[in-house]
């Protein structure tokens, strides 16, 4: 008890402090080196969107090459210079485009842009904290990310172009600077950028975990946390455990590149003549280290999207999330399982078939928590009083992509089928649907839903619908045909595979996919316009525009340092009391005590609370006897 009163006291002090700070706030401390989690969230979001647009443009460039492998576009030469001599994309630059597109999308957009934005915005606001555990570290986290982005993009301006060994940077290609143009300076920049990026995500992740575990408001026990917070929390744990492993792999790679060691390099001859001095190294070792991060990484990408979609779908179905506990346990299940499946990326590396079998089984087990989540989302929608806001549409879109991309995961997780499907377009189709499109839809859902919280204004709904339908249809048109190409054995990352006699027939499909991609890319201007226009001229938001229960909507629309004026609100119930029978409205904020909602209380609201249950029973009995009198 005493700790509670002490806590409140401390908070009051804090208030005084922030009053003083407020006057000293300059442009630099408010907008640039801000330590306020809401500002940092916006910085992450806008940087993330910028990187996403860049990576999308890169993808359009290589899609044009795939659709028109023997056509020259003089405009390309004007834009890209030596990377597109005579208007045709240089083959090495094509590989660089694929590599940097993947790297930016996976790490800079869907890891930093997604977790960075929404963990920063929502963790303090939804658990009821003034700010992160260490605001200073939080600020560093953003600036390391920014630096990493700049370094990554700067590799386009060096002589030999950016890294081009694929986003997985497998040695020996990446370990020998002379192996290809992109393995020189470009690869070095890639590695430096990733070191900063990892430092950024670790600092962020450490803060998220610490804040969730230590700084929840009064009454906010773990089982009263919204699913968004659970998802961000478990995502941060994944990052903390897996990113250091990538650092280890990268450190050894740097030694191989620059110090003449042979961790990953064995006997090899370069360009047919130059015998290299390496011996005995194991390129498979890198794959182990890489995928020990790499597989959790895909869940780092998708889990925040899952949490965001769960929350948005519950709010807009006006129903409690179906199976809250099952949702949490399935997230935990995915977290644990994600560490013991990395081998399914390496089925064809000559892995012991027995080990392949083990990895296959663990991989297929992930289908269980994933299916639990999927069915729970569908059951949440079932007979809900659905409000089709733009955010809601994107959340449903996320579920759609997760299903259609997840099913092909079952094919790929099979060690025998993978012999055929490995490194084909089937893989490309699979992960672009299940983690690419699904995660970006989760992120966009979050942007539409929490835009009023971030900027105090609403985004335009009609433009949102336009954006949704064009993107949704576009994404399916782009990625669905790739399954069939993959089944036919078309390899990924090839510059002009339609030149092969046996794959010629795919040229028309490639053209179709490219035009679908261009349409989807153009559709993003609807979003970009909507986003930036609404920041300044959008309709003013009310405090709780979606009539949601969670704590962030009890904070004032105007951002203040410390989030709530006065005391942090206490929490009395879980976040999903929507359409509770007997309640006056179809939502009850987490901050409303059960004593104010006698009409709608149910016996199970009083688990672990015998006094409350007694009061409840007494009230019910009185009501009954009153009824009889009438």
């Amino acid at each position, binding site marked *: 008890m005493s700790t509670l009163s002490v806590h409140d006291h401390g908070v009051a002090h804090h208030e005084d402090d922030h009053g003083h700070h407020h006057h000293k706030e300059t442009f630099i401390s408010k907008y640039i080196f801000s330590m306020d989690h809401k500002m940092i969230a916006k910085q992450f979001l806008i940087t993330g969107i910028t990187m996403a647009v860049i990576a999308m443009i890169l993808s359009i460039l290589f899609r044009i090459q795939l659709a028109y492998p023997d056509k020259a576009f003089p405009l390309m030469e004007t834009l890209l210079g030596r990377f597109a001599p005579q208007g045709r994309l240089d083959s090495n630059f094509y590989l660089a485009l694929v590599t940097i597109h993947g790297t930016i999308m996976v790490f800079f957009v869907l890891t930093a842009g997604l977790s960075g934005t929404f963990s920063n915005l929502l963790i303090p606001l939804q658990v009821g904290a003034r700010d992160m*555990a*260490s605001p200073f570290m939080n600020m560093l986290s953003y600036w390391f990310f920014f630096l990493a982005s700049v370094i990554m993009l700067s590799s386009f301006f060096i002589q030999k172009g950016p890294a081009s060994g694929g986003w997985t940077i497998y040695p020996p290609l990446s370990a020998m600077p002379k192996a290809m143009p992109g393995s020189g300076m470009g690869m070095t920049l890639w590695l430096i950028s990733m070191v900063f990026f990892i430092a950024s995500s670790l600092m962020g992740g450490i803060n998220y975990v610490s804040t969730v575990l230590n700084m929840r408001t009064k009454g906010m026990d773990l089982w009263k946390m919204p699913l968004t917070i659970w998802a961000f929390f478990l995502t941060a744990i994944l990052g903390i455990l897996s*990113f250091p492993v990538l650092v*280890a792999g990268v450190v*050894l790679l740097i030694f191989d590149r620059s110090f003449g*060691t042979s961790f990953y390099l064995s006997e090899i001859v370069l360009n047919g003549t130059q015998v290299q001095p390496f011996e005995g190294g194991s390129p498979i070792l890198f794959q182990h280290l890489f995928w020990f991060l790499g597989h959790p990484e895909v869940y780092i990408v998708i889990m925040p999207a899952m949490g965001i979609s769960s929350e948005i779908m519950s709010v807009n179905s006006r129903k409690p999330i179906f199976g809250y506990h099952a949702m949490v346990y399935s997230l935990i299940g995915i977290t644990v399982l994600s560490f013991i499946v990395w081998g399914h990326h390496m089925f064809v590396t000559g892995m012991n078939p027995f080990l392949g079998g083990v990895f296959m089984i663990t991989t297929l087990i992930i289908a269980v928590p994933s299916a639990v989540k999927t069915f729970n989302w569908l059951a949440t929608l079932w007979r809900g009083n659905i409000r089709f806001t733009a955010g809601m549409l994107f959340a449903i879109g996320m579920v759609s992509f997760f299903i259609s991309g997840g099913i092909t995961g079952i094919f790929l997780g099979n060690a025998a089928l993978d012999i055929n499907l490995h490194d084909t377009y089937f893989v490309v189709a699979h992960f672009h649907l299940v983690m690419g499109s699904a995660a970006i839809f989760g992120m966009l859902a979050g942007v539409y839903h929490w835009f009023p919280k971030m900027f105090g204004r609403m985004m335009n709904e009609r433009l949102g619908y336009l954006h949704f339908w064009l993107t949704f249809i576009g994404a399916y048109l782009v990625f669905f045909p790739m399954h069939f190409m993959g089944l036919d054995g078309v390899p990924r990352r090839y510059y002009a595979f339609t030149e092969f006699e046996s794959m010629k027939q795919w040229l028309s499909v490639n053209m179709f996919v490219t035009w679908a991609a261009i349409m989807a890319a153009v559709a993003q201007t609807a979003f970009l316009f909507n986003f930036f226009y609404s920041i300044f001229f959008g309709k003013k938001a009310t405090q709780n525009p979606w009539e949601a229960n969670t704590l962030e909507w009890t904070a004032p629309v105007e951002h203040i340092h410390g989030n709530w004026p006065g005391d942090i609100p206490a929490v009395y119930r879980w976040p999903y009391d929507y359409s509770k029978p007997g309640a006056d409205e179809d939502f009850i904020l987490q901050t409303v005590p059960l004593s104010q909602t006698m009409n709608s209380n149910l016996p199970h609201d009083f688990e672990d609370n015998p006094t409350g249950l007694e009061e409840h029973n007494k009230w019910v009995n009185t009501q009954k006897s009153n009824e009889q009198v009438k």
Partner: protein
Amino acid sequence: MMAQIQQEDKLNLAPKKFNMWIFIFTSFMFFAALTSGFIVYAGGGKHGINFKMPQVFLYSTIIIAASSITMFMASRAAKRVQIAQQRLFLSLTIGLGVAFFAIQVYAWLILLPSMGIYFSNPNASQSFVYVFIWMHLLHILAGLLLLINTLIRSYKNVAPVKNLFNMQMSSIFWHFVDIIWIYLYVFLLLNQY
């Protein structure tokens, strides 16, 4: 006591200490990855470490273990608000840390090369020994900076709570780098042939 808790809450110290623990987890995963990498490499190939760990690493291990003891004494002094003792033991810890650093540097600059064991080496098991030493030294360096920072601040008349907090942060980290070295040393001993 009451005042202390209030102070702590205002400065948000508990969550910051927790941050340090999580950071230690990340560091631990880093070394776990390096040693697992070693196991995969040595297990799959023809190369082992192929030399006996020189005696000098035993001395450095003893020194770093001793520094953990002085660190503990320094923390205890800080808890009892015996500032002079705290400074003494803290300085001792720093001294031992520097000695450890020096021995490790001697080992990789002079001793190992004189034994014909080089970093640029077709046998990556031997390169791994260097990587372990370097990556650990990086942590030692960070630990030393943290200790020096704590020592300097203890002269600057900070509030006892803040002083204790600095002390705890640096001691969590220092004990950790100590334990990591012992882990690496034992790991190398077990794999030395």
